[in-house]
């Protein structure tokens, strides 16, 4: 698959699967050539709350090519939730089409299966539904009375927050808002499902293969070993593909009913209503500090929404528990059940949104204290996680801030907001600190060694996924390092539930987990071969070890998992983001002129793919500020931004120059290879960095994302700004 002759990790090599991708040979879920395929098209509800009273499928069924119309009346009976409002995880069941009830606008209420995609899509528009409509809960403000505490863990406190605020010389209380956002990976969610005598085989675009098999098995009440899920390439996920959503179940159900394979693709429009979203969060932050800048209190209350049938909480307050030293801390999360779809994890859930609130508030405090925002953060550093009293495995936040400030030219920052001009533009600098938990998951892998003409070729197998992040490449580099053979002699096979088990891609644990899993398999192979041959690899090399045992092929498995050291520490990646913005004096438009992201995230396996992760995160973070928002129609509850023409993500012109600095680091407490996550660190706190730069440029404090021209043009300067 690749021709790279380098050995080991740390080199900025091209993606090993890059050639397949540009040649169109890297197949995504819906691209597999499965014979006798039928096509399914989901039908969406056109009310937000109520009951289906009648369904007329006659027109649809008459159409050429239509095989079947599925509704709640003829759907398979699936496992139901045991409780009301169950908290959902990445392996929860996904019952669908089980009743006449409608919970939100756009919910699946039916499925048309036809010989072609076009036939299915047209027929789907002909199925007529009659509803008994009820007034939906779609208004955030009027749902406040329904707010509840999801779990005991939704609340946290240490010290006494009131006392901390009372002791403070300077205090702040502000509310920060982030809107509903959508993931929108390039590859649409899709499945090709084949049901065969109780066995399921599915090509499905999922981030966690093992959990997808669990969701299918549990929902249909069949054994997990009878379910195989395959996803060798996943075209992005950002969290939306962590959990096998309803379309996966619908595809399998359709195949079961038809007795033939069925493809179901979620359309771009349906990606807004039928996959996942990041919920709207209203975050109240209270801060107290002594006049020397030492924090006395930090409080973070989050109000958000879930659906009326499933529960998901984005833990925005997580970051406030651990990022700064403060004796008094209070964190609360509340949810309101509303007639909107169930939210779920989106890139850096909690941190991306929570750090916007916290790091904006830190900037506001620094201004009140007349301190430099870099100095204010440095002053409140802690090497012990105050929320767990465990030492950080490594924490280079101060270094990120200081090195970043130097490289960025932070000393040129205007001291007073609104004082640096360039023609019609006001120039401002902003900074924010970033943190993201660096999890490490139990991971198994298999290595298959083959000796050909005195060269050893290796194949690594695991059910890990490459969601565009570079998993193939870093796993190949890792195996190359531990086997001491060129990357070109390593083949990597991923994304098949027949392979050894991993927790897939998510939560920034992929790189550390997959690499250590591959390492463990390689180490086991070498140990066995050394034992068999009595030779040492360091002296003899891998080929000689195999030859001396008369082996032309050899297999070994290995499992890596967190050790006691890991558990006794708090393991996070850290970073800092610096932004220069130019804000038009009159029109409400701003431009990001340049951005520097400094990241401390353990050993960098491949600087090229890691760089891609960070700048991708920065762009997504900038999207949060520039324009990304999913708007709920106030009377009917549908999303009025249901295409890329209306849901605005940044364009190239919005993102000028992004520089990334990785601090050299290997965190051997985190794991044996010293790796920490990169995937979500990049997005974390970018929004605050930009918003803080806008304040520095204009004196306007923008606390509601996104910061669109319509908001910026009418915003007033902060009291006290000249």
């Amino acid at each position, binding site marked *: 698959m690749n021709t790279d002759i380098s050995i080991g990790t740390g080199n900025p090599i091209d993606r090993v699967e890059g050639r397949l991708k540009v040649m169109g040979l890297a197949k995504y879920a819906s691209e597999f050539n499965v014979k006798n395929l039928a096509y399914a098209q989901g039908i969406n509800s*056109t009310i937000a709350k109520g009951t289906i009273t009648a369904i007329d499928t006659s027109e649809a069924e008459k159409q050429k090519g239509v095989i079947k119309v599925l509704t709640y009346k003829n759907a398979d009976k699936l496992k139901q939730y045991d409780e009301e409002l169950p908290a959902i995880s990445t392996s929860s069941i996904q019952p669908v089409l089980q009743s006449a009830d409608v919970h939100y606008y756009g919910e699946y209420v039916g499925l048309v299966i036809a010989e072609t995609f*076009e036939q299915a*899509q*047209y027929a789907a*528009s002909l199925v007529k539904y009659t509803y008994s409509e009820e007034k939906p809960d779609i208004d955030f403000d009027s749902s406040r009375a329904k707010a509840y505490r999801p779990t005991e863990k939704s609340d946290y406190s240490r010290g006494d927050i009131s006392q901390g605020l009372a002791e403070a010389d300077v205090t702040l209380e502000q509310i920060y808002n982030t809107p509903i956002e959508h993931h929108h990976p390039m590859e649409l969610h899709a499945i090709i499902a084949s049901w065969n005598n109780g066995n399921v085989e599915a090509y499905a675009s999922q981030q966690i293969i093992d959990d997808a098999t669990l969701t299918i098995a549990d929902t249909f009440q069949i054994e997990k070993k009878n379910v195989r899920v395959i996803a060798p390439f996943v075209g992005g996920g950002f969290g939306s593909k962590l959990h096998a959503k309803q379309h996966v179940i619908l595809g399998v159900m359709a195949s079961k009913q038809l007795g033939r394979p069925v493809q179901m693709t979620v359309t771009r429009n349906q990606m807004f209503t039928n996959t996942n979203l990041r919920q709207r969060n209203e975050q109240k932050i209270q801060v107290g500090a002594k006049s020397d800048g030492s924090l006395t209190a930090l409080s973070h209350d989050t109000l958000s929404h879930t659906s009326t049938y499933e529960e998901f909480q984005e833990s925005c307050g997580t970051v406030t528990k651990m990022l700064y030293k403060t004796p008094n801390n209070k964190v609360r999360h509340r949810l309101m059940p509303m007639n909107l779809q169930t939210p779920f994890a989106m890139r850096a859930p909690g941190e991306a949104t929570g750090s916007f609130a916290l790091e904006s508030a830190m900037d506001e405090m620094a201004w009140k204290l007349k301190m430099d925002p870099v100095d204010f953060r440095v002053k409140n550093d802690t090497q012990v996680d105050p929320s767990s009293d465990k030492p950080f495995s490594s924490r280079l936040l101060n270094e990120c801030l200081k090195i970043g400030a130097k490289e960025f030219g932070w000393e040129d920052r205007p001291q007073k907001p609104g004082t640096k001009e360039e023609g*019609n533009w006001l120039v401002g600098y902003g900074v924010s600190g970033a943190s993201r938990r660096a999890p490490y998951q139990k991971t198994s892998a298999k290595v298959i060694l083959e000796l050909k003409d005195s060269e050893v070729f290796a194949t690594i197998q695991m059910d890990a996924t490459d969601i565009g992040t570079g998993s193939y490449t870093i796993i190949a580099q890792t195996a190359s390092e531990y086997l001491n053979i060129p990357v070109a002699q390593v083949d990597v096979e991923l994304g098949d539930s027949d392979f050894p088990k991993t927790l897939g891609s998510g939560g920034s644990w992929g790189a550390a987990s997959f690499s250590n899993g591959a390492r463990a398999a390689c180490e086991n192979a070498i140990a066995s071969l050394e034992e068999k041959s009595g030779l040492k690899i360091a002296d003899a090399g891998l080929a000689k070890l195999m030859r001396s045992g008369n082996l032309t092929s050899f297999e070994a498995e290995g499992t890596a998992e967190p050790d006691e050291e890991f558990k006794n520490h708090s393991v996070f990646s850290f970073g800092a983001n610096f932004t220069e913005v130019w804000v038009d004096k*009159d*029109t*409400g*438009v701003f*431009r990001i002129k340049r951005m520097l992201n400094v990241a401390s995230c353990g050993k960098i396996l491949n600087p090229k793919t890691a760089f891609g992760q960070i700048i991708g995160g920065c762009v997504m973070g900038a999207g949060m500020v*520039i*324009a990304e928002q999913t*708007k709920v*129609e*106030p*009377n*009917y509850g*549908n999303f*009025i*931004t*249901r*295409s890329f*023409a*209306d849901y*605005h*993500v*940044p*364009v*190239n*012109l*919005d993102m000028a120059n992004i520089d990334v600095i990785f601090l050299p680091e290997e965190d051997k407490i985190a794991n044996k290879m010293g790796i920490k996550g990169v995937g979500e660190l990049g997005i974390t706190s970018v929004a605050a960095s930009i918003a803080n730069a806008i304040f520095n440029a204009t004196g306007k404090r923008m606390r509601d994302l*996104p910061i*669109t*021209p*319509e*908001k910026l*043009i*009418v915003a007033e300067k902060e009291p006290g700004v000249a």
Partner: protein
Amino acid sequence: MRPFTYTQPKTIEEALTASVTNSDSKYLGGGTNLVDLMKEDVERPSQIIEVADLDFNTITSNDTGGFTLGAMLSNSETANHPDIRKNYPLLSMAMLSAATAQIRNMATNGGNLLQRTRCPYFFEVSMPCNKREPGSGCGALEGANSKHAIFGWSESCVATHPSDMCVALAALEATVTLQKPGGTSRTIEFTDFHRLPGDQPEKDNTMLPGEIITAIDLPSPKFQSNYHYLKIRERSSYAFALISVAAGLQISGGKITDIGLAMGGVAHKPWKLIKAEAFLTGKMPTKANFEQAAELALRDAKTLSDNEYKVTMGKKAIVRALEQALAKTA
């Protein structure tokens, strides 16, 4: 997508005849708007008549000393044409601020005039919309209307026209030539081409059934030195204007002798700022005068629940566009 027939007439007469045989027809230029709307089930023609390859794809001199733009010529070819860049840089600038290079390569000049509103209620067939389904009501009037009109709207429709090109054409005082079945053609002022919604918002313009736009005529070259198209939008490219202003100035002896000023994103049609134009004609091009003109221009604005910001933005945009036009002396 619904089934439809597809015809490719070789001449305009054939195209016009085809439209007479089926009143449910749509002419297809670049398809950048019509095809999208068909996918959304908003447009449901039973016959598509492709006109993109008909012989109206040149730019030629006309007898008023100006130029004639063929209706089937692409937006890219028009905006980048040497005669247009030289003689009507305001038009080039406006056209190049629209959409993306890929869309501009496909979109035709006639099609640009006929693009439909971006109102989300118009796009979502399960929502009420008088423009899409007369009599169903206007969802935006009491709904999500931050991007909607502040001028000329009615209780039945508050949508805006999305084009950038048309804002410049209004400022330049172009004319539009139409041909109808039977072969006769007529020419109308550009500002009479689009209409206000009144109680018939389903009609975007004053075209008669079956008519085809064949040409857009520009008067003798205008505003070659002092012009600006200002577009305020949510991202730097590939977004419709929240507010746009096309400004052209002719200055002689320190005074404004001719002016073209029009706004986009504020009404059901490109909004020519006639009062502001009249106020500034004969005056000195000063910021104070620009600000007074902007006040005058926005005086009649009538905002909806979510679009009050457009008044502030509109005033600032007019002043800025005029300042930029003034500063641009070539």
